[in-house]
């Protein structure tokens, strides 16, 4: 686990990319990891089914924040339909090795929130807020 906290992880933790809120929000979702209390909100601006802009907000550990931050970089410009199909591997590729199984939920929190925003938007779910 100690070898997980590489420089680029700490950099994303301390200087998260695409952090904040959007003016125009076409899709969003929010969740909390009840095990540790980490929270993440994802907001998306869409243009013809493509992620034009994205912001995340929340608080939590280096794993959840860094992986959410990297995820936002990865999906900008992606088709929403492809975002909805993103797999765990995408996150693991971003964050690299060393996460212990107990912390896997932290790493996947951002992905879960992003995917539910995407799937919700695609399926036309009623807005929950």
């Amino acid at each position, binding site marked *: 686990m100690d070898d997980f906290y590489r420089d680029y992880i700490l950099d994303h933790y301390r200087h998260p990319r695409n952090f904040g809120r959007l003016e125009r929000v076409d899709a969003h979702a929010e969740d909390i990891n009840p095990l540790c209390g980490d929270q993440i909100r994802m907001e998306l601006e869409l243009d013809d089914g493509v992620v034009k802009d994205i912001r995340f907000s929340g608080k939590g550990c280096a794993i959840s924040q860094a992986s959410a931050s990297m995820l936002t970089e990865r999906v900008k410009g992606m088709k929403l339909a492809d975002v909805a199909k993103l797999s765990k591997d995408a996150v693991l590729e971003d964050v690299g090795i060393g996460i*212990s199984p107990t*912390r896997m939920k932290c790493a996947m929190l951002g992905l879960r929130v992003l995917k539910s925003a995407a799937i919700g938007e695609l399926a036309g779910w009623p807005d929950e807020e």
Partner: protein
Amino acid sequence: MITVDGKTERIIADFPILARPTSRGKRLVYLDSAATSQKPRSVIQALVDYYEQYNANIHRGVYEIAARATDEYEHARVKLAHFIGAETNEIVWVRNTTEAVNLVAYSWGSANVRAGDAILLTELEHHSDLVPWQLLAERTGAELRFIPVDDRGRFILDDLDALLDGCKLVACAHVSNTLGTILPLDIVIPRAHAAGAVVLVDGAQAAPHLPVDVKALDADFYTFSGHKMLAPTGIGVLYGKHALLEAMPPFFSGGDMIRKVGYASTTFAQPPRRFEAGTSNIADAIAYGVAVEYLQEVGMDWVREHERGLTGYALRRLAEFEPRGLAIYGPRDPAAISGVISFNLADVHAHDLASILDTEGICVRAGHHCTMPLMEKMGWSATARASFYLYNTEADVDVLCAGIEKAARVFGI
């Protein structure tokens, strides 16, 4: 300075898990006893003996092993009563503190709390002594109030009498699981009684660590869990003054808590049996008796002194990291807290800190410690928590500090 007296060394030798290295070959430094304690060999052996020698259902069996199981089970109740200074028929077996609080909330609460009544809690209650009262308030229309705490988690009792006005019930933790704060029950209980309120004390963090005498405290209900005090998971105690228990309607119903059953109606047994429906957790109750015997042999005064010394040492050692951004929450006076210290290292999230400590064999808890409202009030999203018990030593604190040093290095602090 590392001192392990002979007594602590002998105690450590009684806990098999402490002799087992972690998968990375580190010594297990267990600093999470506030979550659950480790178990001495005699408690584990009590389970084995039960299952290998006299496992049988109790109370209604006439044969030899059923008689022995019944005797040992009821004898464990006597031991628990003795441990907290109660009468035997005031000890109700439950699964854990949470069940005990819920039992009171449903049975006593539904019978006694009405719309407009107030229930007084404190701001640092564990969810288990908060949510059941929220639900009761919702069912009945009662009002919840909270004894406030200051920014170090010390109780502010200035407005106590006003808070107690119109109160049916006070429910409060004897010791905070997040900050270790000890509630001054000698002030709160008499004033609650003077105001006509019944007092439930959540003793989950107190019964394992302090000498507790429910009669001297004059608590009406006192709840605690075996697993936090050397006993197995799955067994706990609701203490209630007998007159209160006797006036309470049954809660769970079924086998073993009845006197006479017809198709249409039922007569219930006296407490404590009235509240123990179905086959009890026989083995774990018996082992719980062995656990409190162990604690009594060590001496609860010794346990308290041992932990106080250790907490003082830990507070001093942790303070060395303060210049590098380590924050210690809760009171800084070891006499005012039980062996629990919550802290954070600079901008390292508690979960990351705990993960790095884990690589060194150190077990600490990280998160909200089931006290989300307190965390929110204080503005902490998570804390790391080290908690001590009779088998911990100053050497454990030193390993903890070395682990924190490592985390600081990893995070470039």
